[in-house]
């Protein structure tokens, strides 16, 4: 890019910073070879040219030299200023200006350029170096981590990756302090949970962006449309890579179902004596997999955003199921009679009959097998009896006889 005029307006209206050293008068005199006359002449040109510039004019020579001024006007000569545009210039590998750099293995590079004898020497040196640097293996030990290492560098890398930005609540590891901050705020902060439905609390995941959003979906839209993030992105996977068993997904769905049930029928949890006790302990009834009641405090917390989403740790511990087992919680309430009868097993086929004329044994009666009146009748039945009003005549007759 060639510029005919190199003069811009006075952009340096303020003095340059004090830290810039300037040449002193004595140093300038040395520059001019001790010629004071020449130095004075130079300072004169400088002053005269500055004055013309201040007045908005241009000068390409000594303004005090009329002969030269006339000559230049006649020639139309102007000083040539050339600016080299680096942004549009292509790569110049010879000068070290390249757009892309490939990473080559050191071994490959060296093998390409060196001779065999040099390679042997290098490999010998490498082996000797390895022997010197070889350490006994040591365990990480941070927060019970049992990873083993033979070098400090590898341990350091492991530490930075796995132990540095770790959530103390759910043990998830994050890449940076910012992401950990966001995770803690959105998943383990009750203040956030209270305020998030009412105001924009979800921070943009680009640290320099100060915007906040009402929901994680809105945030994701913003990231994709404004910051051009890829649509299917997530910033971390789960720490615990154990394969999720099928029952956990079933448990999740039951949790959700029971959540609603628990919310609307809290009295079910508050009246343990109201649950039905089954004398026959069939495995299905006591199967912890089928126990679906949870205390409100054990309800799993919702995960924050699609970007931060990780499979939550929703493994149900046996401790939760145990007290329910002890109290004989059953799982058949609410089931239809046909399901219950199937649940009994049907050990004796209905076609078998014991004794002529006798009623079929083991025949299931309507209303369920082995149910007493207090199991079938409504709980509101009053069972109190006044002893004074009871007639003991039949009892007396039987005793006399």
């Amino acid at each position, binding site marked *: 890019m060639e510029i005919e005029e*190199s003069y811009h307006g006075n952009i340096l209206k303020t003095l340059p910073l004090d830290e810039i050293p300037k040449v002193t008068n004595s140093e300038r005199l040395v*520059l001019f070879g001790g010629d004071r006359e020449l130095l004075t002449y130079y300072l004169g040109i*400088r002053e005269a040219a500055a004055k013309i510039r201040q007045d908005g004019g241009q000068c390409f020579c000594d303004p005090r*030299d009329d002969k030269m001024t006339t000559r230049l006007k006649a020639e139309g000569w102007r000083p*040539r200023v*050339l*600016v080299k545009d680096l942004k549009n210039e292509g790569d110049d590998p010879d000068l070290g*200006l390249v757009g892309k750099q490939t990473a080559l293995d050191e071994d490959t590079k060296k093998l390409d350029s060196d001779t065999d004898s040099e390679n042997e020497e290098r490999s010998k040196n490498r082996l000797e170096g390895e022997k010197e640097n070889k350490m006994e293996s040591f365990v990480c030990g941070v927060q019970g981590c049992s990873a083993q290492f033979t070098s400090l560098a590898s341990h350091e890398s492991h530490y*930075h*990756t796995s132990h540095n930005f770790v959530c103390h609540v759910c043990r998830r590891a994050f890449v940076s302090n910012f992401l950990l901050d966001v995770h803690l705020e959105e998943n383990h902060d009750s203040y956030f949970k209270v305020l998030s439905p009412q105001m924009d609390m979800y921070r943009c995941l680009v640290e320099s962006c100060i915007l906040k959003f009402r929901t994680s979906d809105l945030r994701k839209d913003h990231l994709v449309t404004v910051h051009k993030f890829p649509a299917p992105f997530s910033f971390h996977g789960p720490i615990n890579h154990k394969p999720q068993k099928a029952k956990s997904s079933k448990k999740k769905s039951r949790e959700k179902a029971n959540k609603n049930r628990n919310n609307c029928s809290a009295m079910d949890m508050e009246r343990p004596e109201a649950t039905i006790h089954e004398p026959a302990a069939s495995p299905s009834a006591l199967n912890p997999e089928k126990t679906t009641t949870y205390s409100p405090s054990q309800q799993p917390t919702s995960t924050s955003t699609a970007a931060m989403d990780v499979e939550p740790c929703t493994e149900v511990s046996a401790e939760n199921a145990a007290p329910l087992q002890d109290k004989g919680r059953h799982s058949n309430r609410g089931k239809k009679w046909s399901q219950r009868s199937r649940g009994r097993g049907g050990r004796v086929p209905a076609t078998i009959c014991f004794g002529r004329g006798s009623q079929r044994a083991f025949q299931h009666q309507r209303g369920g097998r082995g149910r007493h009146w207090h199991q079938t009748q409504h709980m509101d039945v009053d069972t109190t009896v006044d002893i004074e009003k009871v007639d003991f005549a039949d009892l007396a007759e039987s005793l006399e006889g």
Partner: protein
Amino acid sequence: MAGEEHRKLYKKSGKDTFEIQLAVKDSLLSGQRRERERLLTRKRLKVESLNEATCKLSAEKEQLRVEGATKLLKSGQKVEALTALHQCFARDSKNAETFIKCEGLPLLHSCLLSTNSSVLHAAAWCSINLTAADSHAVQKALRLSPFLIQFLSGSDSTMQELCAWAIGNLAGDSQSNKETLLGQGVIPHLLNLVSTPHHVMVETRTQSVLHALINLARDTTYKCCRCMLENSLFSSLKILLKEVPESSQLCQEIGWLTSCVYSREEIFSEILNANQCGTILHLVVDKLLHLSCLPQDESKEKMMIPYLLCCGNMIGLSTELALLASDLPMFLPAMKACLSSSSNAILLDTVWTLSNFCAEPSCRALVVSQSELMSRLLSLCNEADIHFELLSEVLSLMEGMVRVSCVMNRLLIKQGTLENLSHLLKNSKSTVADKILSIMEILLQDLDLPQQPPGALSYVRESLQYLTTISFDIKLVERTKAVMELFPLSTSSV
């Protein structure tokens, strides 16, 4: 007969024993043939260990390699697979396309989410070479950018270095990539890694960060540069220019970054940056002087050129900076040192810088008054192996030198400029003779005869005479005669 016909209708006819034997033999032979071909193919495609492979593999082999490594990645042997892929991408950039076609990008993405540091490092190395591939593949690889950016603000310096490298490759691919990375907030993270002297001392990481910043600074829209300046690039550059020694290879990258940012016209339109430019110019000139003192080798030229470019551009874009340069104690010594270099590229850029500097008349007067500088410029012209481009540039500079004032022209004559030009005139081509004659014409017009010693101009006159005899260019001869007429009559007899 009828029974046979009936049988044929309803029952399948069995084969003869002979037919069966033939069929078995055929199947055996075809099986053996297939096995032999398979073994031969394997032998042909067998590649020795990658470390010993000094030549590129064929396209077929490369494809098989990449597909095999991708399968290995899917199966869970991540470190081995990523290492193989990293080497494949280094050998041939087309392997990146194959990898993407095999749906390897989601696998690479999942590796970047791993909590295993070995896998992370291997994935980062792989990303570097993937992002150095062809533009089409790099556009797909841009999806990795948010994850690479997040690692910059982590604590693992190895990952920071590798991710900065990969981001630099992404930025260097296209303008759209630069804008995307800018929108994803990469610049504050990069600048944070060179914000203190402590950070800068990690040389490999700083080199990668500078590579990324340079590529971002070369954007055509100035947005990246503005973002850098708003995020304290100035203070980072001050630290880099002051703290990094001249012997470090980082000097080259620092020079390019300074040049790419402060050589832009937009910088000077923002008054906020005005004071910064003076400091940067001072630091650049200082660095240039120190670099010129290094022993001559290939790296010296590579390190000096970006600083010369920065200096020349800044001085050319602002007269105030040219005046500031004239007040810097080390500017003229730096120019002298650069002119003593044997590298043609350095000489060209130095002369160009001086041309921009001499746009201001007082600066021109300053240069003319430096006899050492002038004699070096003229001696350059008379060197036998001088490049034509350099000669032309020096003569253009001289054309400006003789247009300051008559006082300065007399000084030039006193320094022996006429004799030097005459010598050049004898040995030069006709294309530059015109320029030399125009310079001589102006000097002769300002010649102060009483002050000239007797016989001082005889050599000049002889040279002009010689030119008229050897030249076949009629216009040049006429021009020469016109210049000779400028000699006063009293000198013609000398």
